[in-house]
């Protein structure tokens, strides 16, 4: 039985990179031609997405309806309705249709201006009506991010922007932008935003009018292949809730999908897609301007109309604490610890001779494992230990 398990482990490890290498499906994300159409149980189209969609992904639509992806056939996706998501509560807490949730907006934090970081992993992404192409060396996303940064400043926050170019737009782009994300995180921003755009051909999917102004709606993407996924998912819901209050309809969707997106580096690292490549740049910039205000209020920056408030009034207006951060953090930490314990047990079983070996190892923990720190040999005792040859020489 143990041999079967060990062989299965090896085959599983060999399978993972092989799948990524040998799967030569022609799907080219964000090329504007291929995209996924998501329908509900009744066959009604609820979403169109240029990114890869997989079974198990989760989608929160504009009206806060939650859908779990149940099947994917080529580019046709079916999703099961899950109910209305309560954006104010952590995790997947649903509300009944009769309930409404209200939130109090954080207004201002005393002291230095709160920071929000901005960078561009897919540096080439552009808008066809403006540039005539969906991708170019320095994409239109830089202008969208610039507008976002300007809006953050206008609304009392400090924007820290990296102009690093991570072209081309391939699977290694996130590895290249990882260093950029880390550089920005060292400046301790409250939120880090990776600016993107989607790749579906229909501009009307994202077109909307908010407060009389034409905008391109925004999708929030949360990666589930990292330890911060719970915290980031709760943060995405909070962001949507805030946007719903200030600019109803600004956030089109939250998509919880496969991927890391460098969101493992810290909590509140998010990916925002400002419309699609067939929207106009002006619409994307308008939504960036609105999102800047939403983000600024989330970190407690002062809105212009509140800058005339007295000190006492300003001190009363603190960013409201959010239970989601606590819950998401604890649950993620517990998951990590659980995985670490399981990993340790598997590792110990492989390295020792079964449970007895683990007990022996644990009983000798301080004398053997920490021998380098605490000595561990009796005074005066001399024992020569022959060192075995290196692993590869052992094979000969």
């Amino acid at each position: 039985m143990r041999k079967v398990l060990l062989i299965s482990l090896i085959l599983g490890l060999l399978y993972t990179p092989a799948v990524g290498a040998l799967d030569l499906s022609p799907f080219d994300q964000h090329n504007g031609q291929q995209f996924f159409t998501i329908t509900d149980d009744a066959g009604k189209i609820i979403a169109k997405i240029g990114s890869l969609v997989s079974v198990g992904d989760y989608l929160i639509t504009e009206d806060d309806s939650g859908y779990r992806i149940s099947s994917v056939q080529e580019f046709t996706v079916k999703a099961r309705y899950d109910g209305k998501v309560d954006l104010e509560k952590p995790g997947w807490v649903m509300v009944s249709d009769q309930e409404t949730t209200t939130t109090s907006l954080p207004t201002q934090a005393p002291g230095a201006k709160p920071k929000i970081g901005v960078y561009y992993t897919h540096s080439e992404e552009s808008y066809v009506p403006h540039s005539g192409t969906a991708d170019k060396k320095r994409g239109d996303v830089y202008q969208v991010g610039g507008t976002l940064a300007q809006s953050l400043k206008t609304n009392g926050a400090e924007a820290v922007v990296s102009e690093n170019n991570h072209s081309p737009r391939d699977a290694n782009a996130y590895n290249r932008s990882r260093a950029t994300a880390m550089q920005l995180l060292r400046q301790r921003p409250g939120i880090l935003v990776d600016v993107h755009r989607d790749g579906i051909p229909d501009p009307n999917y994202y077109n909307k009018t908010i407060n009389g102004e034409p905008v391109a709606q925004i999708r929030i993407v949360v990666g589930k292949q990292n330890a911060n996924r719970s915290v980031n998912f709760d943060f995405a819901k909070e962001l949507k809730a805030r946007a719903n209050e200030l600019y109803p309809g600004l956030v089109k969707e939250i998509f919880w999908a496969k991927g890391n997106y460098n969101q493992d580096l810290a909590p509140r690292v998010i990916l925002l897609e400002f419309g699609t490549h067939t929207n106009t740049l002006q619409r994307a910039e308008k939504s960036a301007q609105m999102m800047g205000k939403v983000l600024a209020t989330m970190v407690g920056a002062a809105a212009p109309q509140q800058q005339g408030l007295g000190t006492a009034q300003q001190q009363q207006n603190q960013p409201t604490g959010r239970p989601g951060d606590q819950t998401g953090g604890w649950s993620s930490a517990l998951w990590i610890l659980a995985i670490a314990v399981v990993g340790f047990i598997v590792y110990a079983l492989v390295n020792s001779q079964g449970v007895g070996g683990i007990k022996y190892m644990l009983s000798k923990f301080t004398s053997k494992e920490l021998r380098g720190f605490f000595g561990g040999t009796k005074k005066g005792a001399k024992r020569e230990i022959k060192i075995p040859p290196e692993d590869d020489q052992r094979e000969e």
Partner: protein
Amino acid sequence: MSVGLMVLVGATVLIFAGVADRVFDRLRLTDTQALLFIVLIAAGSFIDIPISRTPVQVSLNVGGGLLPLGLAIYLLIKAGSSREVWRALAATAATGVILLGLRYLMRNFGHGRTDIIDPLYVLGVVGGLVGYLAGRSRRSAFIAATLGVLVTDAAYYFSALSQGVRGVVSIGGAGGFDAIVISGVLAVFLAEAIGETRERLGGGPVEDRDFPAGLKVSNVIEDNDDSEKRPE
């Protein structure tokens, strides 16, 4: 930051540091040296050494790049035999070729195209597998994975140069969480798992009066000698 988030960040850092400590322990470093190495990686993560600015910006992070790459080169220099050196270099070359091949195959993959694992971990998995298969040792796996990532960085540099893209090559730029460190740690762990698995399948370790069953000597006390024979 809330208590929950602090616990999350703390747990992540501690576990990663613990895993890395175990890995470095297997790579010719004593317990103290391994711990010191991790501390240096963390401290060095804040230091970027600029190498060039235009047309492609290149920098080398001390913690995420210089230190692990330096360790890999040190292991190469201190290898017990020239055969071990050549095997490690062959493993590095093989890893680099496979990673470049994967990069070409995944050239159109954008958001979330990861099938099972994220590209960040693919580097370590490939490095570990190839490094172990080619070099059949944990050290070869570490060397292959870390230098293999460097190969991909170099390839990107020349690619950006040829296409006129004002790109950025930040070697180890994400510090302790960069692909180089993650790949190296993952590679050694994989090599350990595969090596131990093979040994178990082959009947387990040979027992000797100096090597009680289940005992693994983790600290290298003296350099290996080719003339040393495995105890019968």
